[in-house]
């Protein structure tokens, strides 16, 4: 079932965020959670035997899955791209400032300076 895939992906992303010390790996984990939530929202609108919600020659009358979650996920994907871009720009800055994106290396570098 798709629900299980989404929940397990959320678990994978959460494990990555808590266990990793590299900030970039944490960002990738956050993106995995983002994708998992999108999968979950789309799967809430699925209907057995229904088609994609577009009127066409193949489906001239409505026998559609729920289009509203898909529209919301379209919004969520674009906002996810914005978050990813801004966060990676911040990571580039951290790397230029401290020479690393690893939390413990940054901490060690700060202690050396003090």
């Amino acid at each position, binding site marked *: 079932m798709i629900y299980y895939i989404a929940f397990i992906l959320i678990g994978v992303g959460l494990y990555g965020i808590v266990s990793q010390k590299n900030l970039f790996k944490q960002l990738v984990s956050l993106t995995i959670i983002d994708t998992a939530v999108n999968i979950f929202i789309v799967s809430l609108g699925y209907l057995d035997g229904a088609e994609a919600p577009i009127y*066409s020659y193949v489906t001239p009358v409505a026998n559609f899955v729920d289009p509203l979650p898909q529209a919301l996920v379209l919004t969520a994907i674009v906002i996810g791209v914005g978050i990813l871009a801004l966060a990676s720009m911040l990571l580039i800055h951290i790397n230029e400032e401290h020479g690393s994106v690893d939390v413990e290396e940054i901490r060690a570098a700060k202690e050396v300076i003090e």
Partner: protein
Amino acid sequence: MRRIWALLITAVFVYFLIGIYLPTLPEFGNIDMFRRVSFDYISKSTTREYQPVEFKHSKGLEEGSANVVTSIVVNYRSFDTLGEVTVLFTAALGVGILASIRKRRVEFEEHRVLSVATGIVFPLILLFGAYIFIHGHLTPGGGFPGGTVIALGVLLLMLAKNEFKVTDVAKYTEQIAGSGYVLVGLIGMAIAGVFLANFFPTGIVGELFSAGVVPIVYTLIGFKVGAELSSLVSELREGDRA
């Protein structure tokens, strides 16, 4: 130690999701469409009596696009999309401010095959992106995928030619397209009385000129997203641009 904590926290969360949250959900693939608000969106009957919509037959509906997701994104919930475009603009602005702090430039090694092939492929990529956002109300796609395709073309140019730069034209395009979206909304308010209302007549479902204001808005969004993402990619590559 850190990994054990991570495993524990993950196990608690996944147990909560699967053991407690999952039984409250509707069964997968077995939802009741008639009790959802989407039913009105699909039959395009939020303001009138229910009538079945048929491809290439129904005309003069309250909303004419064949792609129901597009009709929600650009017509019924257009205000959401305006907010979404604003969020993307804010993210691009933040990246621009952060990029201008320090001077930096990533150089690529130019490859002859890539640079010759880019010259041939780039116009076709632009054409494909424009096709996607103009036909957003008929086929899967729309302003956001179309703009992303255009930005990918710009990225290809950037990889192929080392001296290529995204100039200020991208910024002006983005500003004009963004204010054009708000302007369309204000015209809708002046004519139909509601912000972002559809003020053009709708045609037969499934034809190119059938969705009223939707292709105009999606073209503006396509230009805006394309310009925004290409300037974003170029700012990730080089800081402190003129």
